[in-house]
């Protein structure tokens, strides 16, 4: 019975619900803008990771390494592009 019970998935499901509630709190409670945005950003990325790892089964097949490399590469490029654009057009204009 224990082998059949998908403990990881159920735990992940509860965890993603908790993350959603934390994100929802931003709407109901009165945070300052930077704090609210930080909470949203962090919960969003943790949420995406939970979905990718637990429910889209990244890393469970032999391609695991390729998938994570790909995701990491994508994140690096996205971050560089966004930070670079902000630097060019706002922070250093």
């Amino acid at each position, binding site marked *: 019975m224990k082998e059949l019970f998908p403990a990881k998935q159920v735990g992940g499901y509860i965890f993603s619900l908790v993350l959603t509630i934390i994100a929802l709190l931003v709407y109901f409670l009165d945070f300052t803008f930077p704090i609210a945005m930080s909470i949203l950003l962090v919960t969003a990325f943790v949420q995406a990771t939970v979905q990718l790892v637990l429910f889209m089964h990244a890393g469970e097949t032999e391609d695991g390494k*390729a998938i994570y490399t790909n995701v990491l590469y*994508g994140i*690096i490029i996205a971050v*560089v*592009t966004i930070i*670079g*654009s902000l*630097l*060019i057009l706002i922070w*250093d204009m």
Partner: protein
Amino acid sequence: MEFFERFAVPHPSPAIYASMVAIVVVSLAIVVGLTYFKKWGYLWREWLTTVDHKKIGIMYLISAILMLFRGGADAIMMRAQLSMPENQLLDAQHYNEIFTTHGVVMIIFMAMPFIFAFMNIVVPLQIGARDVAFPRLNAISFWLFFFGAMLFNISFVVGGSPDAGWTSYFPLAGTEFSESVGTNYYMIAIQISGIGSLMTGINMITTILKMRAPGMSLMKMPMFTWATFMACVIIIFAFPVLTIALLMGTTDRLFATNFFTSTNGGMDMLWANFFWVWGHPEVYILILPAFGLYSEIISTFSGRNLYGYKSMVGSMVIISLLSFLVWTHHFFTMGQGALTNSIFSISTMAIAVPTGVKIFNWLLTMWKGKIRFTVPMLYSVGFIPLFTIGGVTGVMLAMSAADYQYHNTMFLVAHFHNTIIPGVVFAMLAGLHYYWPKMFGFMLNERIGKWAFWFLSIGFVLAFFPMYITGLDGQARRMYTYSEATGFGPLNFVAFIGAGLMTIAFCIIVYNILYSIKNSPRNVGDDPWNARTLEWATHNPVPEYNFARTPHVASSEALWDVKKNGHELFKGDIEKIHMPNNSGVPFIMGVIFFIAGFSFVFALWVPAVIALIGIFACMVLRSFEKDDGRYISVEEIKATESTYGGANS
């Protein structure tokens, strides 16, 4: 009649009317010819519906050569206009349209299909696969590219060409300053073919990761496959940026949104930023496969294995990452501060290091080699010094403080042609001669090929080196004329002569193809160049199943192992081979995309919506279609193998 007025060319000239007549005549001639020789069925069965990577590659190749001549015609018109001060051959508007279409055609519709041609033809053979991972998707990629290119090419006779430069900077490209539909063509045509490029990127990566022959680990892949792999990684990360930027530009122009306007909270500089976030990696998408081809050719004709395989791979990985960190160097003068410019100056100069590693590796591959100066090798050897000059001027441009002097002058134009022509065009021509027997089973004539090489190289030097000087003297880019007092006249005339020599070179190449079709011997064997890599271990031209038996590979130079170490490449018996079925859907989807694109360009919403529904209908049909492919029987394979003289049976 009012409805049809929108299709009129806003700025006509006799040349454009002549082109209209020429287009109608040529189209009629093709239709009549196909009907007269009863080739419609052949065309549909063998080419339009094909999913064979080799045939798709050949179609890419033919399209690329056609577009080379289209872009080349633009180029020679520009050089003719600038050959003398105060020249009146073209007016300002036509000149704007011509440099815009020249840039777009050469990058998107010539260089891209050229590299896709070699990726398609060579990569599955180099890794011992039967086809690419998604053959049907591959056909869709091609037809999206093809109809995107056709849509772009009708712009100058229907509604007017884009005229805001190939970079199409806003606010110039906005509706306020570009009223004609030309820039709509730019947005939509590049969008359609860009989707095709993205699909090819995904397709090639999957092919390379999943379909390599037994024994071929990643570090045993031939260098062109590595180069394709890295280029496709760049494609799938860079092209989405272009897709979104074009979408935002399209909605700005068609639906009056304010992403890139200079009023209402829009930011015109954001377009330049997005364009180059895609645009700089795009340069490396073009050059990495070219580097891959050079690696194959130099190693083959030096009779030595590639020097520094690991450092070659490593430098490409570093280039692919660095290519995303340098985009600001295209607009150092836009107004951002010294901090930003310094960061991007340094990252730009850093990219010269892995590129330099590759140059030294090629030189060391040739070192003490037994060099055979065939036509592909001539192009490769010519590439090294010429490209290095382009690289050095690139480092000059990378210094942001100095760039204020060079920005938007002919110096820049000379620099990027100096990297793209010896870097990409020479590689494509070298690859064309090198892989011609692979594709068609006969060689291109060497003597005529060498003539073309010398005309092209000398023409190139004459055409572009004077621009370095006039650029430093202050000749601005994209100016349609200049006064005699500037003194730019003589050097620009030299450049015109150079452009003329290059034109002659391309005509010689076409003549060479026709001459060789007629006169070249057809019994060249399977390995006419004494090559080293796996793609030469099958027959010429390649049978549709590529390899009768799956090859077992032990190194990156599988065929050399066979020839020198007695490696046994093909083990076991011939078994039946599973192949994908042909399909007309990709072609039909391309046609529908063309109709949708055309409707969007002219804001004809009813046909646009119908066409979009048609595209989704094709996708839904595909989801419910049951297609298990087909098998080629053992007898059929044996019969095919025996027609090649049975060398492999």
